[in-house]
């Protein structure tokens, strides 16, 4: 027979303590390849570049400002990862070199994370059981 008290079901509470949700850090790309224009928003960058171009500044200053303006381009890294998953080998390699995605080789992060959680749980139980 299960035990009950005013604070609820003790057995369920014990169970809950060890079944905390574990969320993987790995992103699962979607099945559909997004349009490349969905990956980034460069409106502010283009506006700045247009104004820089129209200015009377010397060319080397313009070049500096134009490179700096690119810092305002917003990337949607979920869409970027979706795009990567449906791209050619050559495109994938450039995307990796530019760190637009991080490939979890041999599931080092995914499996390592699960092992770390298991080991911490064992240590916790050793200290508190």
């Amino acid at each position, binding site marked *: 027979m299960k035990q009950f008290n005013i604070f609820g079901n003790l057995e369920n509470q014990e169970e809950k303590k060890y079944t905390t949700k574990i*969320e993987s*850090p*790995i992103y699962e*790309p979607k099945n559909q390849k997004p349009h490349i224009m969905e990956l980034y928003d460069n409106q502010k960058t283009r506006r700045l570049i247009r104004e820089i171009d129209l200015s009377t500044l010397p060319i080397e200053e313009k070049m500096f400002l134009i490179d700096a303006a690119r810092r305002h381009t917003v990337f949607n*890294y979920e869409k970027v990862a979706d795009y990567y998953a449906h791209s050619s080998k050559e495109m994938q390699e450039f995307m990796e070199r530019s760190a637009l995605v*991080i*490939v979890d080789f041999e599931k080092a992060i995914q499996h390592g994370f699960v092992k770390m*959680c298991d080991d*911490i749980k064992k*240590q916790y139980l050793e200290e508190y059981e």
Partner: protein
Amino acid sequence: MNDFAVFILTHGRADNVITFKTLKKCGYTGPVYLVIDNEDKMTNEYIKNFGEENVKIFDKKKMADSIDEGNNFDNRKVIIHARNACFEIAKELGIKYFIQLDDDYYYFGYRYDTGAKIIKNLDEVFRIVFDFYKNSNITSIALSQGGDHIGGFSGIKLKRKCMNSFFCSTDRPFQFIGSINEDVNTYTTLGSRGHVFFTFTNLQLDQKDTQSNKGGMTDQYHLSGTYVKSFHTVMMQPNSVKVSMMNSNHPRLHHSINWKETTPMIIDQKYKIQ
């Protein structure tokens, strides 16, 4: 682990290094080094309290001249110099792995749905985290902070931020940037370029509230409020970080990060065409 040590980064608090006591309370038995700068007026007290061999002093001005402080304030009452000095100090000591801690932690705990419980064997917990760190080629990983769990525990996960406590290796050096908000500046800018930083929510540390503990960075925050602090990160990562209001015991301006637009996704190797 014999190639590992704890570094406590401290300034002007020789008689109040709370983290040192907390480490012992939580069962840590390994080496601890106090990292101080050569402009600290309490150098003698640190040496007296912790022993000369355990106090590592670095040249703050020299470090300031070699890094990107992100401003021209010429204010060295900040922690970034100590953070960057740790890699060199570890090399000199012949230590490959180290964790950087602030000096005001009063708690290290496990964190589950049911709340936090104090860690009794921190040696083993550090070993477990370093096992993950060594095998996954990430840049750094941190323990979560009490503030990460405001509103309730949202599960065991690896957040892409990395603050306060940094597990590091001399063979994966990186440079902290921006004289204040250096941790956020670093994990956002380097994170956007492919470095992987994590916070592990299954473990938690707690420290004195920002701006309530005398010494350390507190004077700096009182001087400029947190607007200047937060805005350093906006300067460095203008496409995905904003400044917004954070309500807590001490309401203040704070950085607001759009994560989807800051760090590239980590994906399984199966999506890569071989």
